[in-house]
């Protein structure tokens, strides 16, 4: 085996990633209605409803929840919605379906790491959602300048974005893992829906984690969803500092390592079990 083999394999994976990205982009835009509903509108309605809920709760000007007054809460909800859109979600992968119905079989005879194709989906998701969010922020800050969140500093914005990207990768790995369970289980979509609900709560999409009881908030700070949505939101608004950012990076990297190892293990075990059902 030559010493250049790993680097050429990496170069091949990167080239394939580029093509897979373009392929996924074509797939996601193949249906205009599907694109508008799934890609543009996803994750927008819940925070919009929560704005009205908080309007009722924080009716007086001095009312606070965990240090958030109403304008800060609105800014936080806009940030949470934007960050949640960037996070990879359960409907982004149809791997479980492919395993159940035997379509994944075809990839097993190809000279390709299946994960690279899935990564193409992840890259497409980030690209599309970043564009959507950029458009949303441009329109939103023009129409609602008094409510739209402003970054405490340029570095706070960069740090927040970095945490969201790492968090999104964690979410992608969790989606992949839940899908791979289809090698063993028939209840993957139920598990996926449950995971999504837990994720929304732990990420602080509806209620900022810092506004939750301290014991619960302390526990959630060890989980990656908090560092993917709630913490970046507070970093952006200047409610958390660089020290917290560093902690967030460490927690997220630890999660990525653990999830990557689990993914590799489950994928290999799953393939050994695979019978290509129905194919």
């Amino acid at each position, binding site marked *: 085996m030559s010493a250049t083999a790993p680097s050429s394999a990496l170069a091949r994976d990167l080239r394939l990633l580029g093509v897979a990205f373009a392929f996924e982009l074509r797939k996601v835009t193949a*249906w205009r209605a599907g694109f508008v509903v799934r890609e543009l509108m996803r994750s927008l309605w819940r925070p919009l409803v929560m704005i009205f809920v908080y309007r009722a709760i924080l009716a007086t000007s001095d009312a606070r929840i965990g240090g958030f007054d109403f304008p800060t809460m609105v800014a936080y909800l806009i940030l949470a919605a934007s960050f949640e859109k960037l996070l990879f979600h359960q409907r982004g992968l149809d791997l479980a379906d492919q395993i159940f119905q035997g379509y994944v079989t075809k990839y097993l005879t190809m000279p390709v790491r299946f994960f690279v194709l899935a990564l193409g989906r992840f890259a497409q998701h980030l690209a599309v959602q970043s564009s959507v969010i950029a458009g949303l922020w441009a329109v939103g800050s023009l129409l609602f300048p008094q409510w739209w969140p402003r970054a405490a500093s340029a570095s706070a914005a960069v740090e927040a974005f970095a945490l969201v990207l790492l968090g999104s990768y964690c979410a992608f790995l969790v989606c992949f893992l839940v899908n791979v369970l289809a090698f063993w289980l028939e209840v993957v979509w139920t598990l996926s829906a449950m995971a999504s609900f837990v994720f929304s709560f732990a990420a602080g999409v509806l209620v900022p984690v810092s506004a939750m009881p301290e014991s619960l908030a302390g526990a959630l700070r060890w989980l990656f969803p908090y560092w993917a949505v709630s913490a970046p939101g507070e970093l952006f608004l200047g409610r958390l500092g660089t020290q917290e950012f560093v902690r967030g990076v460490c927690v997220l990297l630890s999660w990525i390592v653990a999830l990557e190892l689990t993914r590799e293990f489950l994928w290999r075990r799953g393939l050994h079990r695979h019978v290509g059902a129905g*194919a």
Partner: protein
Amino acid sequence: MNEVLIEMRGAGKRFRTWKRREGLGGFFVNLFAREWTEVAALEGIELEIRRGEFLGLIGANGAGKTTLLKCVSGITPVSSGSARMFGCDSFALRDEHKRRLSMVMGQRSQLWWDLPAIDSFRLLREIYSVPRSDFELRLREAAERLGVADKLQRQLRNLSLGERMKMEIIGAFLHEPDVVFLDEPTIGLDLVSRETIRRYLVEINRARGVTIVLTSHDMEDIEETCRRLVILRQGRVLFDGGLVDLKARTYERRAIEVHLEPSSPGWDAAFEPLLEPLGARLERAAPLTLLFSVPAPAVQRFVPFVFERFAIRDLSIEHHPLDMIIRQIFQQREGGS
């Protein structure tokens, strides 16, 4: 031509499954005490496939055809014995080996439903590292030969079943593989599409020496493309040999198909003993069609026999069709076992 590309030695594949007891009581028992059983999908398979062969793999549903393809192509590991391709364990094929093989599942599309086939082909080009110029040339040539050159830009879901399958075939051959597995590629296709696909496969097998393993329930597919036949039954190889050899076994018999007038009396079980002295057998009896297998020397005596008993609209005498030969093999083995 002599190089062995695929080799199975005593290969077996067993699946573990649990028996689902019926009823509500069975449901509760299943929760706490499962009764596991092992199903042998393949047993003691001995098989060698050489470069350039066109092999037909046939058998009833559940005979193990697709499982055999999966084991030999590395999709699933064998439970016992060995399955090797290109000299390597099939389940541990490296990328350079996988570049030399291809698989088409007749009921599982390789191409993306919502996109034109050309988009999926471009992804395949990258996966198999096909140089751009080769890709364009091969694509154009295959699309023209299969008559779908003007359909490449059309969304796959808007193509007919036959056109979709032709696209699958194009995708399978784009990287010029050495071995191609085709699992029921003509299922549900019309006559013209089937013929086009068969002709293309035969041409490419002859021109490039591609080894092709074809499973099909359509005996015409097998007869018009394959030179060697492997018959599977309950996970075991029942017959492995040349199609010509197989036909020669029953060369001394003829298939006589009798089409009756609507007013004619039909087949009666009382006629059975009358067939025995002639060495004839009734193979199939439909209301207005009877199919007999008759020894060649007895044909002269058999024809008057049927004319005496039935009002006949038409009658044909032919060598045994392949499906009848195969049915006989099954019957002989059942009788022998």
